[in-house]
């Protein structure tokens, strides 16, 4: 029985290629795009964001979660190395803020579909990905206005284009996470706001707890706390020319108060 099964598997693999059959539960091999954030690349993600896959930054609850700042800071990092597309379905993008994050605006394409036309936003993202755009950020805002069938169709087309081009695709999604998007994602990072970071009484950043709730490319369940330090372009003490929005730190529960106090 085992020999005949092995022979059948060998026949299928020789005829249809080694990727034709894969064991369930295994991890999908994917190239990665390093985010340059130590905690993301080593603690949460397998070397960075997966290429050719859809990564979702999901809000755990309604309200501020830091997902949009995170996707914008990732886009800013990417823009210094490649062309970047940002689909602003949330309608919250401020290019000035993107520049403060260290983005090279000359390499950024901002896609702004009509309000509420998520289908058009996904279609445009798919078109740009098919054309060869290597990095794509999609910011969703508010509850989904798409029917499930339209969701699935749009996401399937986008996933196919992203996979074909090996592009990095990051979707920032509000809570609750739409089921089709949860299914289409190869990596889901759930973000929860853990409080403001204050220095001398001023808000200088947002602490975000990130948990890998789904991963087809690595182990899930990893957890870390990030400090999204807001840019302060007019502050004399800032390092000019270097983005400082992400100051990732792995925060252990017993050390959390000390780090919060140190700023």
């Amino acid at each position, binding site marked *: 029985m085992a020999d005949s099964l092995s022979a059948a598997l060998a026949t299928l693999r020789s005829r249809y290629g080694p990727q034709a059959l894969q064991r369930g539960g295994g991890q999908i091999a994917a190239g990665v795009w390093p985010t340059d954030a130590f905690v993301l690349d080593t603690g949460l993600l397998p070397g960075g964001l997966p290429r050719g896959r859809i990564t979702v930054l999901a809000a755990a609850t309604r309200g501020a979660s830091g997902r949009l700042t995170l996707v914008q800071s990732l886009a800013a990092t990417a823009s210094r190395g490649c*062309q970047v597309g940002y689909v602003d379905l949330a309608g919250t993008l401020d290019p000035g803020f993107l*520049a403060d994050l260290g983005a090279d605006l000359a390499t950024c394409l901002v896609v702004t579909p009509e309000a509420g036309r998520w289908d058009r936003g996904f279609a445009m993202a798919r078109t740009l990905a098919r054309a060869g755009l290597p990095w794509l950020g999609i910011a969703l805002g508010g509850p989904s206005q798409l029917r499930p069938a339209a969701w699935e169709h749009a996401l399937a087309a986008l996933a196919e284009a992203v996979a074909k081009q090996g592009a990095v695709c990051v979707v920032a999604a509000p809570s609750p996470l739409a089921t089709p998007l949860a299914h289409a994602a190869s990596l889901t990072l759930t973000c929860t706001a853990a409080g403001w970071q204050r220095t001398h009484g001023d808000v200088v950043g947002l602490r975000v707890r990130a948990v890998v709730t789904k991963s087809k490319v690595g182990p899930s369940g990893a957890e870390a706390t990030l400090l999204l330090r807001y840019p302060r372009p007019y502050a004399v003490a800032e390092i000019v020319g270097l983005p400082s929005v992400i100051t990732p730190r792995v925060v252990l529960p017993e050390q959390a108060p000390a780090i919060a106090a140190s700023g």
Partner: protein
Amino acid sequence: MRVLCALHPHLGLVAALRRHPDLHGEAVIVGGAPELRLPVVAASPVARAAGLRAGQTLRQAQQLCPGAAFVPLDSGAVTALRASVSVELQRLSPAVEAGDDEVLCDLSGRHAAYASEMAWAAAVARALSVILDADPPAVGVAASRFVARLAARAGTSGRIRRVRSGDEAAFLAPLPLAVLPVDPDVTARLAGFGLDCLGAVAGLAPADLQRQFGLDGLRVHRLARGLDGDGVNPESSVRAWSERLVLDGSSGDLETLLRAARHCTDVLGARLAERGLAASEVRLDYETEDRAPSGVCVVPAGPVGNIVETWAAVLGLLGELRPGAPVTAVLVEVQRLAPAAGRQTDLWRAGDAAREAVFLAAGRLRARFGDQAVRRPRLALDPGDLPERRFAWDVPAVAGGAG
């Protein structure tokens, strides 16, 4: 910048010899009948050996070379030959300036297929020789068109004279003042000062020359030092190619029209890619039996240079143009042809090779969903206090495109 200058027989003479092959090796004078009060346009080597030069009157030419054949100048053939030279050499050089008796090509940078500048120049010379069916031309390569032209004149047929960057002044120094393309009065006054070669002029201070000759003095100084910096001035192309397909009977079926347009696009796109050209405008026409042809035209976001890009433009036109009557023929035309622009890919920027394709896709999205669909932000030069005044929006466009 590196400029190649190739001196070839006058295109009028080439056209005349193609028309009258029996005149090969004979004394031929192009310009018209000797009775006419016209100048000699070109002369064959045999006629030139008799002392004939372009610019002399035809009557003088008859006296110098009584046995010569006098042929009129075929302007149409010369224009066609010049266009042919330009198109063929554009395969080898991004910018080509074809004249009546010389060709200038831009050899700046490196060519992927030729390891050295000499090999590249030799390829251009070979191509020119094949196109004109003539002896290999005399070729000069230098940093400017003036020096390259003189280098070509200093060489002989089939030889390439290369002046390295920085050696221009040394190359020009022994040449006489007569080679300067300036007013003869200026060269006569320079000679009056006892200056007999370009090296002597180059040794003067530019301020002194300017004091004596004004702006001409500064130009003379730059030319004498090989610093004129003039490059190749490629002709602005107004050519167009079209492909027409006559349908088997009239048809209003959109599927049939789409297939006909696709066939025409395939032919034109393949020809564009083969010739290394790109079109800045695409037109689609429907011909009907009883009405005047109806057509639409589009300026794509970027020049189209292959089947895929051309088809994307034609597909948009197919959506716009509705046939009012059964169509008998479909015509696709690509206009404003120019050498397809090339650029150096930024190897440190991932996906940079797809930049044009991404911008073209962005252009299509803008055409379909509106101007605000895809934009590129740019920091404002004079930002105000309001956040929305810190930036402005640009159109992502490929160089040479519509944007």
